[in-house]
């Protein structure tokens, strides 16, 4: 095809031979090997965590997608729909098995290696069951710090991979990416955004190991687990179901309160205090981080994909197609987003489709469906601009297929803008998602799976009491992430194009609202 012609021309112009990266690495493998060895070690020590999370996410997405097919096929034939359900159940069962097996793999920074749940042996006596007999708070703090340091180092090491590539294997001495990275280096605000993103990703991935206890033990089936504690009255070590311990550790203002950075009566440490039902707020928020990032990630990914495809198609063909997309986009956003979400969420509250990813799947779909018009509007300008460039015209007269033109000549130009607006729209999605969970009544993420919005709503009545921490800390989690996403977007925008600042369409994409 004509593709090869263009590459040949570029090779001739630049004087580079088109050697595959693999060959270039084989010629001088040392820097690559050094980098890769460290990376493999870094991943291997936490392999179980990554593998189980990835497989579990794939499984949920698979169930969701097949469910959509099932509904569509249900209109046509019952048999086909049933076949889809059979396939879905088989594959899902298999994947869950694999994910469980992966989760059982030992990891370096797990709660088994550095345990923080233990009990005293006497009134002032030493701690038993915790890491090296440390206080639970210290043991938890140690594990938390190590995990964060590990995650930060891992992120640095991934970036380091790009540096190794640039230094040793890249043929070009300079590419525009170098300038972008250079500009980000002096951009403290953007760096703050990246740091926040990495931190929240850490919470989502390592949530089960980060908390002082687990969602399973403390929240979902608290009566299936027992803990041991030192009973000051009897002077003996006794055991109690977690659910009962929770019942006596409630934060309901006044006398009943377990505040941030304190112990309850059972020797359990609560970094953020407890909820009004006695569960650990920190663990609850870590669980919330995971579901929030999965749902908003799915939503923004899908929305960006739709927006990218539609913006290039509408810019390339213009005319009637452009007008049609415009009308559809306006139609989608004509119903205010939160109202549409409430409608869909309420209608599907008791439907099995509303149970996938604890209600998150259908919300992710609605968010994707309502977010792409904003993204499309924001990148339509740049897409129209690039569609009128000479190189697109040249490629067309060359006889290149429209698909190739869009992919090779238009996409690279708009992908930066997409990233900027996508990161800013994600804030709106996260706020909308927590707003639904806040409203409750079957909307949002289904209990007992933790959700940030629900934590705010649980603490609603205690804001002015001693248990102020419930709503305040949960809300600040959202504020920090949304601020970080906006900062990240600002940073990327300034890195791509330092000239423009605050273009139109951005505020529409960034809107918090809910």
């Amino acid at each position, binding site marked *: 095809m004509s593709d090869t012609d263009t590459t040949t021309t570029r090779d001739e112009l630049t004087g580079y031979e088109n050697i595959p990266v693999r060959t270039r690495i084989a010629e001088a493998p040392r820097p690559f090997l050094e980098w890769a060895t460290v990376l493999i070690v870094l991943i291997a020590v936490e392999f179980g965590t990554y593998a189980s999370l990835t497989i579990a996410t794939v499984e949920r997405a698979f169930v969701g997608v097949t469910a959509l097919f099932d509904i569509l096929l249900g209109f046509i034939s019952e048999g086909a729909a049933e076949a889809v359900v059979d396939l879905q159940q088989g594959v899902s069962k298999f994947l869950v098995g694999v994910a469980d097996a992966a989760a059982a793999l030992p990891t370096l920074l797990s709660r088994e290696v550095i345990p923080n749940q233990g009990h005293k042996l006497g009134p002032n006596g030493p701690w038993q069951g915790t890491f090296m007999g440390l206080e639970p708070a210290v043991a938890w703090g140690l594990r938390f710090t190590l995990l964060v340091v590990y995650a930060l180092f891992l992120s640095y090491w991934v970036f380091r991979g790009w540096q190794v590539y640039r230094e040793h294997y890249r043929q070009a001495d300079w590419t525009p990416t170098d300038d972008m990275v250079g500009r980000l280096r002096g951009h403290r605000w953007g760096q703050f955004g990246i740091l926040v993103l990495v931190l929240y990703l850490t919470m989502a991935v390592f949530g089960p190991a980060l908390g002082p206890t687990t969602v399973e033990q403390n929240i979902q089936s608290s009566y299936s687990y027992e803990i041991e504690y030192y009973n000051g009255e009897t002077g003996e070590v006794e055991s109690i179901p977690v659910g009962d311990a929770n019942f006596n550790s409630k934060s309901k203002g006044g006398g009943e309160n377990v505040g941030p950075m304190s112990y309850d009566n059972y020797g359990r440490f609560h970094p953020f205090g407890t909820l009004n039902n006695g569960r650990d707020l920190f663990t609850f928020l870590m669980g919330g981080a995971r579901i929030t990032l999965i749902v908003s990630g799915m939503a923004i990914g899908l929305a960006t994909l739709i927006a990218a495809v539609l913006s290039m198609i509408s810019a390339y063909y213009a005319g009637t197609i452009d007008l049609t997309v415009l*009308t*559809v986009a*306006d*139609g*989608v*956003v*004509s*119903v*205010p*987003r*939160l*109202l*549409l979400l*409430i*409608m*869909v969420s*309420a*209608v*599907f509250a*008791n*439907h099995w489709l509303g149970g996938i990813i604890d209600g998150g799947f259908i919300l992710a779909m609605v968010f994707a469906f309502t977010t792409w018009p904003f993204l499309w509007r924001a990148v*339509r300008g740049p897409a*129209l601009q690039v569609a009128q460039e000479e190189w697109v015209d040249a490629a067309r007269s060359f006889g290149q297929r429209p698909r190739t033109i869009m992919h090779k000549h238009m996409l690279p130009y708009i992908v930066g803008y997409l990233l900027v607006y996508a990161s800013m729209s994600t*804030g709106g999605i996260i*706020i909308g998602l*927590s*707003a639904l969970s*806040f*409203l409750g*009544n*079957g909307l949002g993420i289904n209990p007992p799976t933790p959700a940030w*919005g629900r934590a*705010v*709503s649980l*603490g*609603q009545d*205690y*804001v*002015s*009491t001693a248990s*102020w921490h419930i*709503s*305040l800390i*949960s*809300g600040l989690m*959202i*504020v920090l992430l*949304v*601020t970080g996403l*906006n900062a990240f977007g600002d940073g990327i925008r300034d890195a791509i194009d330092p000239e423009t*600042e*605050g273009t*139109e369409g951005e*505020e*529409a994409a*960034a*809107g*918090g*609202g*809910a």
Partner: protein
Amino acid sequence: MNRLLYLGKRLLLAVPVFLFGITMSFLIMYRGPIDPVLNILGQDATPADVRQLKIALGIIYPDGTPVPLWSQYFKVVTDLVTLDFGQSWIIQRGTAVTDLILNRMPATLWLGFWSVVIALAFGIPGGLYAGLRANTWRDYITSGGGIIWRAMPNFWLAVMFVGVLSAGGALSFYQDLLIQTDVIGTPDALGNMFGSAHVFAGVPLLEALWIPIPNLENLAIAVKWIFPAALVLGSASMGNEIRIGRTAVLESINSKYVQTAKAKGVSGRRIVTKHVGRNALIPLLPVIMGEFYLLIGGSVLVEKVFSIRGLGNMFFRGMLGPDIPLVMALVFLFIVVNITLNISQDILYTFIDPRITLEDTER
């Protein structure tokens, strides 16, 4: 192009947009997995009752055959377009939806009005202030505040405000400040802000006319009562206005025409009002108009937390019912408001910025 012609074209284009929105809502409400009959009658309803209700709701014909979906759709759309909203199914069974909406409208309008005013009153001066003092600590505090203000979820901010302002909170003195008001709930004062004066009493024909006389005490109560809720609802827009305003000021302050004005010796104040401020308004327009869009969705949350008897709160309750005629009527209302605002924004643009032609706004 002529403005009128343009308006006509926009209205024509609004028809498919409107139909898209209504169809989407119709499919969710009428084709979604909910059973309004079960919700209205409860579990132990006799088949005869169910049958009768289904006929009354237009789900089946009197002879028992189901009404096809397209025919239901056609009826719903015609009813909505002719403003025949029907009766409520669940919230207040048998009450006309129009009455319910009119009853709840004042609180929402009052809330929306003040949230726009408050956002504008703080946001635009804030943006101008930050822009004119760019890169000083004053700028950093203002624009940093705007950024965080914008990132705060409305519902959370509302919860915090209610907690701090109500009895026992750190700012509970607000309730007794100047005039006694509650923070949550809807005061009677809202409905009695204006008395009527029949100035033409006794004069034939003109007798029916009256002039609203503000009841100052009730007005003050209503304003003070709505202030926290309106501040919350306007928060995101205020943050946006500070941010965009600052950028716009920075852009115009460095432009050639401002330099020229300076060189000519135009006073600093005149430069700000005449050259910087006016140009900074252009990028602010979509933010201000976008505010209305945020208001509609945000009002559900803010009204719920502040227990305001408004449309948003009613929509939420109607959706939980589900009270389908009420929900459809409200959605219809929101879509119409939304489309109207969109069109007026594009037309306003051409008045504010003469460089923008009607062809541009179409894109």
